[in-house]
């Protein structure tokens, strides 16, 4: 069997990356794998390529085990940034829109590069000896590798990559994405700062909720020199923010983003929703609860008055809430009902609940039981804002029996031929 063709193919792959592997040596390795170890030729080609990639300290060039690697000459096609798929060698032209401090000494530069199709994070390895790129300039990057890091596509610039600065003046106007269409990676939105949350970590500068016509998303800005807080209620154009995913929920990290405040106004949908159904479950933690009195905390305390952040708080504040499931027979919705709505729905006021909790032998459990008896299995309609799959209910009413619906159903059941 002749291995020179495959060996040349492998060699070319690395030649385009600036390395000059020994073709004879490659041929010998292939021969040994196939003849001596009975490895499939395509698999042998793959493993020799990976071995060389490791040797030259390059990410393994991606191609399938049986793929027609013969077709692509190193696979460095010119692409739009949005078209890059992990495992591919690409050549792109883009603008550096953000630079971040390298997270490790083996990284020379990292940041975000964008073209009109999208944006991608990039990493320049220190070993690559690549020229430093400047924020705001355009570059042509040849033979870089797209791979995946923490589930997000990433562009790796290694020693085989050629970087050329593009001097002509090009404009780049990014288009915002509706919040509901955001995906992990890099994204831009036009949104209103609808809710500010308390920083849950000392390194956190600000966190809260951004909203547009299609939904809302959590954001965070970490403390870093030069970072400024957003103004609640203001509208922003935010570009090249990092969209992270955690437990299936998305959030925006704005540290590397370009943020421009504007004058406009946005009708934030905030996921306004109304749902009708029967209450099929009341979850533990419903009824009367104690909350942490520390300014801005308000967390629910444990039975022993323990706040996860501020420890024992004997001067807690009472509150009412119901966490439950509203079911329409097709889908079950998680609902969180706040105090005033709980009061009108159950007919038990906070003062009455407190009186029960403090004087009944079952204490707070008795409030839970009484509230459950009043609403479990009842048909109600809830309105509020839906955030992360949970309806925060601010209006709620019991549904009355409808004679009109009764008549309509009788007609429907009796009307059709059986």
């Amino acid at each position: 069997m002749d291995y020179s063709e495959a060996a040349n193919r492998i060699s070319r792959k690395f030649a385009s990356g600036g390395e000059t592997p020994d073709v004879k040596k490659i041929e010998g390795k292939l021969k040994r794998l196939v003849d001596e170890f009975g490895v499939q030729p395509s698999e042998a080609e793959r493993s020799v390529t990976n071995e060389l990639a490791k040797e030259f300290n390059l990410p393994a060039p991606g191609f399938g085990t049986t793929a027609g690697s013969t077709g692509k000459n190193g696979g460095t096609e010119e692409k739009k940034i949005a078209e890059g798929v992990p495992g591919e060698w690409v050549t792109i032209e883009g603008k550096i829109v953000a630079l971040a401090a390298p997270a490790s000494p083996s990284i020379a530069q990292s940041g975000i590069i964008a073209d009109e199709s999208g944006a991608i994070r990039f990493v320049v390895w220190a070993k690559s000896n690549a020229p430093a790129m400047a924020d705001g300039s355009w570059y042509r990057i040849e033979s870089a590798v797209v791979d995946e890091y923490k589930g997000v596509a990433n562009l790796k610039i290694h020693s085989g990559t050629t970087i050329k600065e593009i001097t002509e003046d090009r404009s780049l106007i990014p288009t915002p994405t509706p919040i509901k269409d955001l995906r992990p990676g890099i994204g831009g939105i036009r949104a209103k700062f609808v809710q500010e949350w308390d920083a849950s970590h000392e390194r956190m500068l600000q966190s809260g909720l951004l909203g547009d016509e299609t939904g809302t998303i959590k954001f965070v800005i970490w403390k870093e020199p030069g970072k400024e807080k957003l103004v609640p209620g203001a509208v922003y154009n935010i570009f090249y923010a990092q969209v992270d995913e955690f437990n299936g929920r998305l959030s925006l990290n704005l540290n590397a983003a370009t943020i421009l405040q504007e004058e406009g106004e946005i009708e934030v949908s905030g996921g306004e929703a109304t749902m009708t159904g029967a209450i099929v479950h009341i979850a533990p933690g419903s009824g009367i609860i104690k909350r942490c009195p520390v300014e801005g905390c308000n967390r629910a305390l444990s039975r022993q008055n323990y706040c996860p952040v501020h420890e024992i708080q004997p001067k807690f504040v009472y509150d009412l809430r119901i966490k439950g499931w509203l079911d329409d027979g097709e889908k079950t919705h998680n609902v969180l009902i706040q105090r005033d709505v709980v009061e009108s729905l159950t007919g038990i006021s906070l003062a009455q609940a407190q009186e029960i909790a403090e004087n009944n032998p079952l204490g707070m459990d008795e409030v839970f039981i009484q509230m459950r008896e009043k609403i479990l299995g009842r048909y109600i309609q809830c309105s509020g804002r839906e955030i992360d799959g949970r309806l925060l209910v601010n209006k709620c009413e019991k549904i009355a029996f409808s004679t009109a619906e009764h008549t309509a159903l009788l007609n429907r059941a009796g009307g059709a031929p059986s």
Partner: protein
Amino acid sequence: MSTNATDMPARREGQFEREPARRVFAAELRECRYQFKDGEDEKSPTFVLLPSGERSNRIFIVGTLTEKTRQGEQNMFYRGRVVDPTGTFFVMAGSYQPEAMQQLAKIEPPQFVAVIGKASIYQKDPASAPLVSVRVESINVVDKETRDQWVLDTAKHTLDRVDAFTKEPTPDILKAKEQYPTIDPSLFRKIAYDALAQIKM
């Protein structure tokens, strides 16, 4: 502006979704003979296939608790009968559902009750007829208006299923046709009508 939208999984994929509580009349639930598991996992939900062509893991019923009996010594449990306009549901709550058992123990029949539970098919021995029973997750005393609303709600869902049965067949409808060859779902249209007609205007 995402970098490779096509490769990313759907946004809510993998997140826990609570099984909805299906609305079904006693006359239809009684006919169920086929139950199955969705997936290989030990914790995969078990479904009972309704003859009208829909799977049900959890059900929501409202009716009259007419009878309640305590059984067993070591493994005590409660059995009850909940009656709707079309027939009887057999409900039970054992020591594995202590909350539900205590709730049921407290209720003195007759009372209108709402029951959320899971249906499953039992057969005492190969010779006896299979029995569909409902393991209670929650039971609560309600009023007559809630019962009447449930009849409307259940009639509507039953009619929706019967209508869907003759249209585009879903995998569950095909399965129901295979498992219940002798049952004509239009029977449940009549049952829904009779149930509605029992509500006094």
